[in-house]
């Protein structure tokens, strides 16, 4: 077989959802007998792409060729019949059925009558497992197996359907190192048998350990593809995060300004550990780190949305222990959540209600809302933030992503919070709106607000933060400011956990 001919060839595939193009004209080709890594941050379009390949979603445009023939799957079973098996992060096995039953689900061999031919079934399963080079207890219910073993059941199940293309969606997310090594051995074995493997992960170390080639997606678009031997980690990060050479334009923190927020040794099991930081009035501090480094969880714990297990928080020098976001609000904190649709907006309610939600008390007199006062403030914010809307009564569902993001921002401006925690303040926002949001953050700091920003885009952090903290695997592993603020160092810290801190971090992870 000519190795240059792809078994699976995706050309200009596009998939739109209301308000967002999740996959935008992506090209992607996989050859037989190769392990092809698909890389990208959350929301880059990886999941959508593999759902299209696996028949779980329809494409809106583009062509998928399987062995040169155009295909268009309208169901997962159609994709499976064509030889494409997707193993999703959440395994879909029947926990009460045996390993053998799960592997041969839907096509158990039958005897002349209608009974299951168990000897034949067990022989077939034994063959499949031998092909993988693994052993599993055939008659045990799958629910009793470890996650790693269940994954092998899924892979064997895919093989039983003669799948020639195996797509693994973040298989390593729930595995320990030893299980991962085992999985790699299985994957390499399959490669040797000519199976094409698409391996999805955002752990770069793994990609370098296993993949032959890599394709990177960013914001739904193709950001590049390389043979693994011809690419560096830094190059991949740049492709994933869209980081360019950054210029520091942020305000220097005023060392004499009062400390608004001080966090000491804050920990939350399974999320982050031993984080200390402080934030002065008028200061903008960034937190960099890969997805899953604990950045979002840290902000949520400071805000009282989740409870920390250990450590202390001080607001304006006074100890604070927030049991709920409502308590944090009363002390002047505001959180712009990571995902505006699920955590920020009342999508089917009017813009007005969305903006005033956190500051209803301000518009209330004698127990009743004052619609005129509310209307005035909301209109002011619509003007100040250049929110493109017909008026305060428009449902936010009908606004564009950038304008929706501004609505959530407006909510905290209406509240006049002095300590702002922004999680991905410009996610899914176009360039123009991004600039406006940056200017707004600067204006807030200039008026004395203390701002803590989490962002996946290094370019963004470099553009607005004079001081950047780096998190990796739940720990703060670096702090960069002034002359030390160099992109290479920040990237190193994100990936390796910084200079001397590297060893303990990895052990803790």
């Amino acid at each position, binding site marked *: 077989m000519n190795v240059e001919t792809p078994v699976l060839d995706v050309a200009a595939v596009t998939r739109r959802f209301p308000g967002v193009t999740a996959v935008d004209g992506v090209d992607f080709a996989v050859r037989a007998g190769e392990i092809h890594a698909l890389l990208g941050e959350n929301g880059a379009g990886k999941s959508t792409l593999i759902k299209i390949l696996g028949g779980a979603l329809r494409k809106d445009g583009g062509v998928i060729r399987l062995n040169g023939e155009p295909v268009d799957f309208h169901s997962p079973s159609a994709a499976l019949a064509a030889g494409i098996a997707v193993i999703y992060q959440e395994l879909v096995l029947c926990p009460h059925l045996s390993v053998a039953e799960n592997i041969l689900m839907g096509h158990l061999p039958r005897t002349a009558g209608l009974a299951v031919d168990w000897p034949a079934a067990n022989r077939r399963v034994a063959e499949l497992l031998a092909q993988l080079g693994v052993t599993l207890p055939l008659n045990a219910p799958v629910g009793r197996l470890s996650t790693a073993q269940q994954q092998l059941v899924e892979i064997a199940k895919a093989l039983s359907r003669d799948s020639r293309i195996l797509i693994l969606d973040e298989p390593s997310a729930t595995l320990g190192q030893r299980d991962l090594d085992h999985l790699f051995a299985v994957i390499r074995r399959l490669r040797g048998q000519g199976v094409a493997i698409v391996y999805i992960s955002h752990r770069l170390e793994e990609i370098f350990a296993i993949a032959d080639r890599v394709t990177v997606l960013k914001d739904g678009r193709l950001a590049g593809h390389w043979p693994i031997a011809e690419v560096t980690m830094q190059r991949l990060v740049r492709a994933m995060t869209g980081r360019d050479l950054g210029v520091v334009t942020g305000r220097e923190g005023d060392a004499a300004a009062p400390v608004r927020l001080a966090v000491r040794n804050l920990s939350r099991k399974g999320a982050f550990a031993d984080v200390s930081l402080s934030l002065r009035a008028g200061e903008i501090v960034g937190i960099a780190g890969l997805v899953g480094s604990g950045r979002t969880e840290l902000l949520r714990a400071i*805000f009282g*949305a989740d409870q920390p297990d250990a450590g202390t928080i001080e607001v304006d020098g006074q100890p604070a222990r927030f049991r*709920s*976001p*409502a308590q*944090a*609000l*009363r002390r002047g904190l505001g*959180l712009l*959540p990571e995902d505006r649709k*699920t*955590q*920020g*907006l*009342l*999508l*089917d*309610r009017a813009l007005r*209600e969305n903006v*005033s*939600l*956190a500051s*209803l*008390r301000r518009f*209330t007199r004698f*127990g*009743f*809302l004052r*619609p005129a006062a509310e209307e005035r403030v909301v209109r002011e914010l619509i003007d100040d933030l*250049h929110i*493109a*809307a*017909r008026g305060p009564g428009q449902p936010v569902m*009908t606004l*564009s992503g950038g304008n929706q993001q501004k609505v959530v921002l407006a*909510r905290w401006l209406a509240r006049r919070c002095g300590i702002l925690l922004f999680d991905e303040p410009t996610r899914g926002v176009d360039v123009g709106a991004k600039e406006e949001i940056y200017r707004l953050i600067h204006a807030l700091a200039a008026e004395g607000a203390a701002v803590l920003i989490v962002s996946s885009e290094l370019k963004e952090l470099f553009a607005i933060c004079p001081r950047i903290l780096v998190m990796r695997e739940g720990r703060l592993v670096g702090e960069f400011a002034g002359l030390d603020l160099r992109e290479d160092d920040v990237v190193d810290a994100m990936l390796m956990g910084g200079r001397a801190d590297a060893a303990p971090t990895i052990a803790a992870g």
Partner: protein
Amino acid sequence: MRLQQSLPVERVGGGRQRLDARDILARYGTFLALIALIVVAALLSPRFLTPVNLMNVLRQTAIVGVLGIGMTYVILTAGIDLSVGATLALSAVLLAGTLETTGNIVLAMLVAVLAGMAVGLGNGLGVTLGRVQPFVMTLGMLGIARSIAFLYTGGEPIPVLDRTFLTLGIGYLWRIPIPSLIFIAILVVAALALRYTPFGRAVYAIGSNEEAARLSGIAVGRVKTLVYIISGATAGIGAIMYCSQFASAPPIAGEGYELDAIAAVVVGGTSLFGGQGGVIGTFFGALIIGILSNILNLMGVSPFAQPLAKGALIILAVLIVGRGRRG
């Protein structure tokens, strides 16, 4: 500058022309359906538009309408309260019992409302602190409240004989049945509270996106508990209306009323997913169901066939509203 920024909106506006008919249907559909039903009813039966009959419809709508108002609050938070019928029965027998032993009307009515609120508090705490699904929590409470009503009365109805009290149910004020006036008064208060208080905003916010509401500092647990207490209170008020209309408090009182109340809410255009709708819609919804029963009675349609007509109407209403909302 401003003009430029409104450009993309205009494009959205272009698409809205088509949406407008649906919008109108979604927003005023219930009201239009009510008008249509009244016209049809008047054509079908000459007796329909007589004052006596109309007053009867109003009186018969009052109990389910009041329950529907409490139910609207619960459903707006994306909850449900299946216990209101049984709560009405519990409140009714306690009312009748109190009236029998003390003869104190005010005390008896107070007992009814407080009992309803206590049941609502139980529901609310179960849903918030206990994290029990509203459907399951209130289904359990339905059984508990109904059973206590039976145990309290020993299964027999308690007669209600106080003439002054009965005036509440069968009397008129300004030629309008008193229960209907109570219904309207509660409706006005409920509508104002929903629209013009922070509590009302919180109710919509929770139904629309509970996590967003919590992260915006809304005391989600407190508000949710309160809507179940309100629903219980309306069941207590419904019990006062029931006893004063039927001069009796049987433990089987209010059986199936929860479904009529839910029907009124749904026909009134409130989304079972929460966050959309309101009590004015429920008012029209209750009237539609009341008028439908009335016209079926006037036409001499078999009682066996009446639930069929009601059921079909509810499904039809949701189909239409559903189209307008999410189509």
